[in-house]
């Protein structure tokens, strides 16, 4: 996108000048993609926080807007992941019989846990993810999973090892 990389020259770039010069631009860039102002404001703050936390020295940024957009895109993808999870969760809640619906506090805690786990599982192949969820959440044995997926038990074992390794790498 051309508008993303229009070069800007700033004397003495620092986080505060970066923020001052590009915040409203970034916010409108995000707003066009999100369709609303409040999420855009949130994500633009997050973007600057990421930049602050990253190892990349602000002073060496050649194309600050291109860099902000790169960080912003990553946050947008995460944002949409969280939203799609939340939507699926709300839909599932709505289908529960009234007496099974957890209390508001529980619902909120549960959503937070689910979001953390969703992020943890992000990046796994869909089939590996599903096999892992069947095993962890539904307690299915490897044989049943193999039957459902029409693969061998050895393959299921390999999937599970992959999933565990992926999660442990994040956690360790």
């Amino acid at each position, binding site marked *: 996108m051309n508008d993303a990389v229009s070069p800007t020259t700033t004397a003495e770039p620092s986080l505060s000048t970066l923020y001052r010069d590009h915040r409203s631009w970034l916010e409108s860039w995000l707003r066009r993609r999100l369709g609303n102002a409040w999420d855009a404001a949130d994500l633009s703050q997050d973007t600057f926080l990421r930049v602050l936390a990253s190892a990349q020295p602000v002073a060496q940024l050649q194309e600050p807007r291109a860099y902000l957009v790169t960080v912003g895109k990553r946050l947008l993808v995460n944002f949409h992941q969280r939203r799609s999870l939340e939507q699926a969760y709300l839909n599932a809640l709505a289908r529960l019989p009234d007496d099974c619906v957890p209390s508001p506090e529980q619902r909120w805690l549960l959503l937070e846990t689910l979001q953390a786990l969703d992020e943890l599982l992000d990046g796994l192949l869909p089939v590996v993810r599903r096999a892992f969820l069947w095993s962890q959440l539904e307690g299915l044995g490897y044989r049943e999973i193999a039957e459902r997926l029409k693969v061998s038990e050895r393959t299921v*074992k390999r999937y599970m090892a992959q999933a565990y390794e992926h999660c442990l790498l994040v956690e360790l």
Partner: protein
Amino acid sequence: MSRTAPDVARAAAQWLALLESGTAGERDHAGLQQWRDSHPQHEQAWQKAQLLRQRFAELPSSLAMASLDRPQPGRRAVLKRALGVAALVPAAWLLSRQLPLDVWRADLHTATGERKRVPLADGSALQLNTASAVDVNLAQRRLTLVDGEMALSVPGAAALTVHTRYGQVVASQAEVCVRQLAQACVVSVLKGQVQVHDGAGHSALVRGGQQIRLQASGLGVPVPFDALQLGWRDGVLTAQNQGLGDFLRELDRYRPGVLRWDPSLEALRVTGSFRLDDTDRILSLLATTHGLQVQWRTRYWVTLAPRKTLA
């Protein structure tokens, strides 16, 4: 012997998978114990793995399954959606957006809460309301309302046809709004007159100030309507002594997530004009004027209740 985290993670994962497969023998158990004892990092990884399993085990399985195993659009699709329309349309369209020139051909859409105004190359103007999609093909003088709601202003004599699920709307020198509902399509004429055709060969002439329903069973009759209903074109939601329930259902269209309210609020009346670009503020205003409590679970999950029941 110090080992790198990836090595340890891999080894722990292999042990876990072996154990869970049900094929591990006595010797494997001994081997695992030996592995755990051989380095503090190994034992630590093993404990982490147990915690991980516990986190999953504590979840209510059906809710967790429905959420975590939701259909995944795939990373690329997520990225595309995240980046919005701009990432999907050809460069020429990007260029025209920046110039801003006019549109000949495009698949346009808006997110929930978004509104968009698009000038067309023939001098007509198209507006998309929240969560809407319209395909434009000016070469064939044809627009297709895929979803949601659109307003079209055609100043010229050359007609534009709007295709909907239940029929067509032909407009020239006219201004018209078309809204797709679940079972019908509502055509409201603001200026001029338009010809509305159903799928069965019937048609009706609808004049300014009139509205008609188009559905699978055919055409309704033109009836007068209140232009206040179409305030979204100016970014305003207007209510004139409207039931709060109806008002909130309308407001809900503009808000991502879930908006719920206590049934006792349905019958309260609302009058006023509200800016659509800040729907949170509309809720706060209503809370003040009607003595309501707004509960925010998350920004996307809001419940309205009478204040007294929560005290």
